[in-house]
């Protein structure tokens, strides 16, 4: 792709408002709505800016309706921004020029493009023709991707007879046939079981390593994000909330660690209050939230004060943190 090699994607003060008409209930409201329509703008994305370098894998986090999909669709050219700038590899996505379209691909977990009644192979050759690949090129490419995705005879079985996991892998194969360098993935693991999710993840990570393709993905499964994305962009109510690496997000979200203790004998809860915030206390098991600067002190005190069988220190689960984040609505 041409232009500025350091930034593949540039998003600058991007906003998208949807115009919505407001209708009062009842017949009177309907008449009024017809003759004197009051419209107002609902912000879906407000003033978002970031840059993405080639080869990055970036995860977009946010609650439902936060504006992730709108943002993703503006970057691949399906939605026109209201104000602001999007630049992907030197192209303005909304113009959807052929050269741009050949460089990108979109996978939507809840929408499929393969022909339902036919084996994926048929759809693959249709796609190959649309992208102007020769039969030979297509064959080489399909074999290469099928091997990476561990797809074999599934490709010659009707799509309607494939499992969700096999279908998703075939969808991904169809989307990658033309060697795109930018991948937009909207919930690519939606509805898959844990194993299938893991396989899609390891494929994406390997694809990124092999081809240097840039991957932008949204997911509701935190495991996708933690396994794949060193960098995350959090969107909350249409606004950019956090942009940085996942580890520091965890740190800024929660300056505390979880300390789980297994005691030899049950103890009353009051005895633990001075060490940290009690998350859970159940017979001989205690779970405490301890701020990091006090951690070493607290642990050594615990070990001297109690008869302890086992002790474990961990980060609170990230999805729980992010859930809290979206409820609270701000980063500490």
């Amino acid at each position, binding site marked *: 792709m041409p232009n500025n090699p350091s930034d593949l994607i540039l998003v600058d003060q991007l906003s998208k408002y949807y115009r919505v008409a407001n209708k009062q209930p009842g017949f009177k409201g309907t008449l009024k709505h017809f003759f004197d329509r009051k419209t107002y703008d609902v912000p879906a994305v407000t003033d978002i800016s970031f840059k993405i370098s080639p080869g990055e894998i970036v995860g977009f986090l946010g609650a439902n309706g936060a504006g992730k999909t709108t943002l993703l669709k503006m970057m691949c050219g*399906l939605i026109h921004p209201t104000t602001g700038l999007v630049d992907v590899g030197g192209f303005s996505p909304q113009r959807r020029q052929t050269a741009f*379209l*050949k460089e990108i691909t979109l996978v939507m977990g809840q929408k499929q493009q393969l022909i339902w009644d036919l084996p994926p192979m048929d759809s693959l050759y249709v796609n190959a023709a649309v992208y102007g690949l020769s039969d030979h090129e297509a064959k080489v490419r399909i074999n290469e991707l099928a091997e990476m995705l561990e797809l074999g005879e599934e490709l010659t079985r009707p799509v309607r007879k494939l499992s969700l996991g096999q279908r998703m892998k075939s969808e991904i194969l169809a989307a990658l046939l033309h060697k795109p360098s930018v991948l937009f993935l909207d919930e690519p693991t939606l509805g898959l079981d844990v194993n299938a999710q893991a396989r899609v993840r390891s494929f994406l990570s390997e694809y990124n390593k092999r081809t240097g393709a840039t991957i932008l993905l949204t997911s509701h499964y935190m495991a996708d994000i933690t396994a794949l994305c060193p960098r995350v962009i959090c969107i909350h109510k249409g606004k950019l909330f956090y942009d940085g690496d996942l580890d520091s997000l965890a740190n800024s979200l929660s300056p505390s660690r979880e300390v789980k203790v297994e005691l030899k004998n049950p103890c009353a809860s009051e005895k633990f209050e001075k060490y940290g915030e009690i998350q859970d206390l159940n017979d001989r098991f205690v779970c405490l939230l301890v701020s990091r600067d006090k951690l070493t002190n607290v642990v050594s005190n615990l070990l001297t004060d109690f008869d302890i069988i086992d002790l474990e220190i961990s980060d609170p689960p990230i999805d729980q943190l992010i859930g809290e984040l979206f409820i609270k609505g701000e980063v500490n």
Partner: protein
Amino acid sequence: MQRYFKTIRLFWSTAFASQLEYQLNFLIELLAMLGTLLGSVFILSLFFTGGRQLGDWTWESALVIQGVYTFLDGLTNALLRPNLTEIVNYVREGTLDYVLLKPIDSQFWLSVKKFSFAGLPEIILGLLIVFWAAIQSGSSFSIYSLFVFIISLLIGFIILYSVWFLIAASSIWFVKTWNATEVLRALLAAGRYPISAYPVVLRFIFTLVLPVAFLTTFPAEAILGELKFNILFFGLILSSLFFIFSRLFWKFALKHYTSASS
């Protein structure tokens, strides 16, 4: 251009393969088509029993119109109905997004993606009726009249396609399968009989407002060697305008889609 031809070939071979997945359904479609055809020839024959005339058309020349109608109806069943009634589903299910991100003209994709082979016998039968009836009515073919016939068929088809596509494209706003396409089929059905068989007011409307005359009557006149050159010329301009308008309207509709969808 070559890419587009190869794409059409693959579109249609996959369409054929998917239809064969359901053999019984395919057979029933063929039977239904045959029934309709027999019915319409029978009704037409009723008009002419006892030496009556339809407008100033003889039985044989009216049969030419029936042939053209059958041909266009076949083309409708093969191409227009499967593709254009599907547009609303692309919009509703959001799979239009995939089409818009393909490096290929989206109107092209949506218009030729499918091909229903059940329409094919009607297309062939229609042509057979046209030629048989034209010979019966004493028409002497020339390369010129064949050429004019093909052009006028093309004009008729493009007009029908454009109007249908316009209506289908409006589903971007309405996102609802509405029955406007049925109106179009009725319009085409109005073309089963010679335009001059209708009262003057309808004749005027069918020529200039809803160009039914261009769909069937004019191609029939062409093969019978009776089509006036200025009508052909007018038809060429009209169909080009219709087609250009359908493209502009699609671009306009997409602008709305891409600035509103989520």
